[in-house]
């Protein structure tokens, strides 16, 4: 999970601050050292880390924290705010030209993911009613043109190419003309991967830039990049004046410190992130959410959005009603499981929930097979049994176990769990009732 280990580290570091009455400068120093190490391990550039630590320390050791009642919380807040501001305050979108076509130039090192990203971007913007044209300017790498053509075909976007014998600058110019004639309002130019120190190829990029005047120049960066990310981003920015960054392979487990570094040295926003190999897995980047996530506060917004997409609102209402009226059955349980599966891999969802930190997740190891088993058991019950589990006697249990390919103890366990869940739900609704009556929580310590 993105930034998972970083949030784990910060939780460790800041956990020491939590629960203390007052903070000394020494405490802050100690915590900051661990924050620093965590950031460094996450491949955030050293200079960026240094500045970050200095800023946070300045704010933390000041009276602001010392006089507040919960210093730990205050430090968490400061670290979060600084981290958010480091990554850009809010999400940044692509700028479209007022006089179409909008020209987007993709650039970056070899293997960063330019061609795939170009295809994803075309796919994404096509859904926003643009008419994109992909342009194959990588004349060097074997089969690069073919790759873009295949990608273009998959997302149903035309690809302009002139083979590998033409100058990329000429191809780009011709492509823009072609786009204008054919009513394409968005032209995405894929270029060859190049090292930032390769003068000839950097000149070529500059040539393309001068030739077609792109509205957006996007630097594609692998999120696994180490300390060198800063050098790369600085050079590309100096030569071309990039307008934004696309961070790829963020579905890996790299901590992605490069994101922070690049943002900090170039001042250019991260506009998109690549979250998978499929061509619809390009997302906009939410710096605020990411910062919260680093601090172990969970990517709540993402979870809510995802849940909204997958959960059937009507079904949820019905469920709520049933829970209230104590009519929750195995059928409803099955429904719930189905909807949960729509959300995606369980451990991924759990990772987004605040309070569930990555360390706990490691031991948890959600077993999707267990869920398949539960499903099999429920599906082996008759309708009657699902509605009223209390009628399930030992011979029925035996039958269910046989039908689902499980054992009687496993069936027993599920039945017991279900009973307990029901009990728990009853307690919740009871609490709610008393709350309504008394106007406050019916818990002993309130």
């Amino acid at each position, binding site marked *: 999970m993105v930034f998972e280990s970083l949030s784990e580290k910060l939780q460790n570091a800041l956990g020491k601050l939590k629960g203390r009455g007052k903070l000394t400068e020494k405490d802050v120093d100690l915590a900051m050292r661990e924050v620093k*190490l965590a950031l*460094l*391990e*996450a*491949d955030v*550039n*050293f200079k960026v880390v*240094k500045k970050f630590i200095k800023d946070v320390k300045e704010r933390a050791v000041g009276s602001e924290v010392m006089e507040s009642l919960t210093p730990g919380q205050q430090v968490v807040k400061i670290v979060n705010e600084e981290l958010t501001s480091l990554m850009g305050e809010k999400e940044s979108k692509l700028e479209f030209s007022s006089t179409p076509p909008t020209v987007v130039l993709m650039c970056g*090192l*070899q*293997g*960063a*993911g330019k*061609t795939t990203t170009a295809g994803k971007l075309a796919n994404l913007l096509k859904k926003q009613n643009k008419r994109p044209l992909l342009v194959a300017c990588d*004349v*060097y*790498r*074997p*089969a*690069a043109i*073919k*790759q*873009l*053509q*295949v*990608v273009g075909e*998959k997302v149903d976007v035309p690809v302009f190419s002139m083979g*590998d*014998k033409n*100058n990329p600058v000429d191809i780009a110019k011709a492509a823009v003309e072609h786009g204008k004639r054919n009513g394409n309002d968005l032209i995405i130019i894929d270029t060859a991967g190049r*090292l*930032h*120190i390769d003068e*000839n*190829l950097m000149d070529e990029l500059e040539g393309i830039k001068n030739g077609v005047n792109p509205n957006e120049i996007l630097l594609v960066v*692998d999120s*696994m*990049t*180490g*300390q*060198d*990310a800063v*050098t*790369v981003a600085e050079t590309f920015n100096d030569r071309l004046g990039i307008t934004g960054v696309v961070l*790829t*392979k963020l*579905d*890996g*487990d*790299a*901590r992605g*410190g*490069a994101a922070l570094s690049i943002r900090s040295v170039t001042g250019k926003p991260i506009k998109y992130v690549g979250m998978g*190999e499929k061509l619809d897995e390009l997302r906009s980047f939410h710096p605020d959410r990411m910062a919260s996530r680093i601090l172990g506060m969970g990517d709540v917004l993402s979870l809510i959005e995802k849940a909204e997409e997958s959960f059937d609102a009507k079904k949820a209402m019905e469920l709520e009603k049933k829970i209230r009226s104590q009519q929750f059955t195995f059928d409803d349980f099955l429904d719930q499981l189905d909807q949960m599966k729509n959300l995606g891999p369980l451990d991924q969802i759990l990772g987004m929930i605040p309070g569930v930190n990555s360390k706990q997740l490691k031991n948890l190891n959600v077993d999707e097979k267990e869920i398949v088993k539960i499903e099999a058991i429920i599906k082996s019950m008759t309708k009657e049994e699902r509605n009223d589990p209390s009628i399930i006697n030992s011979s029925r249990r035996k039958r269910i176990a046989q039908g689902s390919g499980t054992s009687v103890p496993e069936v027993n366990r599920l039945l017991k769990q279900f009973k307990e869940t029901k009990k728990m739900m009853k307690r919740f609704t009871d609490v709610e009732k008393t709350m309504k009556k008394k106007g406050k929580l019916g818990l002993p310590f309130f």
Partner: protein
Amino acid sequence: MFKFFKKSKKNEDENIKEDIQKEEVEEENKYEEGLEEKELDKSDESNNGSEIEGKKEDFFTKLKKGLSKTRQGVTEKIDSILKSYGKIDDDLFDELEEVLITADVGVNTTMEVIDNLKKQAKEQKIKEANDIRELLKEEIEGTLKKVEDSKIDRKLNIDPSPAIILVVGVNGAGKTTTIGKMAWNLKQEGKKVLIAAGDTFRAAAIEQLEEWANRADVNLVAHKEGADPAAVIYDGIQAAKARKSDVLICDTAGRLHNKKNLMNELNKIFRVVEREYPEASKEVLLVVDATTGQNAILQAKVFKEVCDITGVVLTKLDGTAKGGVVIALQSELNVPVKLIGVGEGIDDLQPFDTKSFIEALIG
């Protein structure tokens, strides 16, 4: 019966691929033309020996230049830090820490070095910053020596023939390119090389490998995009046996190591290799981009579990990345770096030499 039928059909496919390679001469010309615009000195790829040797030197100089950048980085920085501090204090150690970390040496290794240094300085009652220089050098050398002394065999494990090389790694590390270069190198050594196009996922990956096979003038076994990669490798092994190839190089699709299904798929491929080709010498190479930061260690760990990697290829070392991750890779995982990629040309794959790497790093 059925199995036989399936196989013969696949053999037909192979024949088609081989036909494609007959257009080799034409393809090569195309390739050279493409390169002319890029860089003149790269255009003569496959001519006579003397020219290649001359070029190899160029690449060595290139590499040395690249690495000497690293050296200036580390030693000069250390010198200037030591000069600017009179007495030893915590800030001094912080700055020394920075120097090592910015070379991607890794936080763990760096902390080890610095902690040892602090301890030593205290024990020997060193107060002057200047006196710490030798100590620091010893510490760094000690760490690197661990890498050097661990009796690591950096030769590819491809003797005796037949041999199989499985190439794995995350997306965009440079697997396909490395295979092309490796095939060319092995062919120059007089080996009979066969390539199996196991990346059936990425768009045009097979075409890319075909082009490299043409350049290196070796045969290729391939299925269509979307085919089962384990089946491709299976066919590759059968073909290698039938044709008595010395080395079979297997490409695989790039995969992030935290994708369980893809890693399972890789494990299946690995098992096919173990089962179908037990007599072959085995080499499983993990390709790592030199610009990769600390994630490289995680990558190596997981890939090692899944397919027992026996070596690492560090690519894109011709950039400004310091490749300090090598140290972490070797000291933490004991996986030797065997080859390094230093450019886009077909002969830009070199053996990794620890001594010159260390020399270049600390001088």
